[in-house]
């Protein structure tokens, strides 16, 4: 079933097509939500909320991107809204955390679960910007627009996310040795 058939079927409220859309994309989109949200429950809640929006707004899809990209964007927005409901999204790293050097040992050996773990340990603000920039491929301008912040804030949050990841990798390395 092509994207167009999926879109038209959902607009017609065809339950079979709607279920096909769910079956095809729910896994990938859940993975996306998990990267943004604190825990799996919140991520699943965000996923279902995102699908409600997708079904309700399917007639607004203009084929300017792939259907998956459009759905991912909706999932990102819903996840961001979930995070916003919490307070203190934007955090600063302490000076000691900044001072740690970057070491590239054993980075290639990281498993998928480790990557998820690394991302989930990031503060909300860092995680959002890092996910959007490094994983989703958003530009700083797009991130700024999506989050309603300046591009400078987006850049600084990304830099701090990198530092935090570096710190976590060092800790991981230290734990192994």
């Amino acid at each position, binding site marked *: 079933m092509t994207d167009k058939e999926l879109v038209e079927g959902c607009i017609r409220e065809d339950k079979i097509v709607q279920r096909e859309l769910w079956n095809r994309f729910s896994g990938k989109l859940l993975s996306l939500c998990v990267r943004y949200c604190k825990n799996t429950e919140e991520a699943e809640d965000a996923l279902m909320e995102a699908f409600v929006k997708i079904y309700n707004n399917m007639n607004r899809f203009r084929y300017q991107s792939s259907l998956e990209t459009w759905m991912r964007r909706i999932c990102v927005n819903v996840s961001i809204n979930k995070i916003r409901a919490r307070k203190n999204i934007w955090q600063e790293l302490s000076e000691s955390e900044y001072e740690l050097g970057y070491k590239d040992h054993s980075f290639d050996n990281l498993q*998928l679960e480790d990557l998820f773990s690394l991302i989930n340990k990031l503060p909300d603000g860092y995680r959002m910007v890092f996910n959007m920039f490094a994983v989703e491929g958003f530009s700083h301008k797009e991130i700024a627009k999506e989050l309603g912040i300046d591009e*400078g804030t987006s850049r600084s949050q990304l830099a701090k996310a990198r530092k935090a990841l570096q710190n976590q990798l060092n800790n991981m390395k230290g734990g192994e040795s």
Partner: protein
Amino acid sequence: MNWNDLENKFLGLNEHSLAPSPSTTFEEVMNRRKKKKRRVIAYWSFTGVALIGVFGLISNSYFNAVNSSTFPEEKNVLNQKQTKKETKEIKTEVGTIYSNQNSSTTLDFKSSEESNSGLSLSTTDEFSDKSIVSNTPILGNTNNSTRTKLPQKTTAVSSEAQSITQNIPNGNIEVMSYESSKYISRVESVQEYLNGESTRASSSSNSNSTGKSNFDKLNINLTGSLLKPIKLNWDPQLGRIDWIDGPWDLDPRTPYIDKRPMYLEFSAITGSRSQVDFDMKQTTSILGTQYMAQYQLLLLRETWDEFLWGLGVQYTEWIGNGQWRNVERFNVQVTDTSYRIVKIPGQPDHKIQIIDTFLKEESNTTTGKIGYKMDNIAIPISFRKITSGFRTPIRIGVQISPGFTTYTRGEYFSATEFQAIGKTRRPTLNAKLTAGPQIQVTGDFCLTIEPSLMYHSFVEVQSKFNGRWFSGLGVSMQWRIK
């Protein structure tokens, strides 16, 4: 290894897939969808009804105010004046009273200061034909001239009268007649009657002596309760605006010109201020209601941190109508003379003259109707700040509007004074403080319910500054135009 190497590792997560838990199913999504649809329908139904109600209230209170202000110049009807004369009796000297079957005694039961103060001008109560006279055997012996129609609700007073009169020796009780007393609205008035005081209530028409007011027909419409703030119980989740409300204060903020949106706003608001009773302590007092209806069109620009400012045009109508009352108090000395026959066994009867002197406080009460209408045009300078509370976007607004009057008529009044408004164009200054929930209707359009505190003022010809505070409620509609 550079940052790209680090980030490239995470790029693989893009294609990663996770299996949802058993509770996260397609059916659950569909259930949520149905629930959301129901909530949206309920929300918009309620919001629609609430908005219609608010507009209805605004228009109703405004048109009531407009319709109730009729000016006598247009009808060429003379001023109507009601005059009520009150008396207060102060006994300064009391002669010795001897009990005698044949003697005539002027009764003075107690001071009537309290009862006098409660005398009402109301003439709306219906009364029965039952009189206190029939309930009190002693008073039943009185002259027929004392028959007066009294209200049914004076039973308690009647029993009080019985207890009082039982302590009085039998005799001819002289009670002054109650003139034109078809209508008594308060128990205190009955007490006055029982106290034997003279209370006169008369009305005169076609007297144009004061020249203070020229209004012949003004309904006092005290509808302050209409303007009570209305609770709108919308769901904050449904009305939530997808704007950022987080603390974005990590870096110094530099506003970008190209990011500043502009808005067009139209708002209608109405306010009122009521004086529900005369001030009894003042010689001149006024009761009435003043209304204010305001319409404005604003062009707003967002600057930073959801702070907006703007300029526009404002049209305001002020209407007031009410009733004035003037009380002139003066003392009159009254001398009351009576005779007593003193019988002493074995001696001839002695006739004694008793002279009582009273100082009566009398008052003339003059009432009339009053009203005014004023229109003005102003340029509002407005500031808005969007914040949130109770998970609802709340807009706080402050504005100040210098302007000038375009139409004036009647007499402007406060609780204790009034004066004619000059016909010439006068400078005005309005201010408004609002805070209310904002409802996002579409991406570019939102409504705000605005409970507000408004101030209007103008400078009189004699450079006298007149200002009033009003409480009000309004609605504003805001479109994003850029």
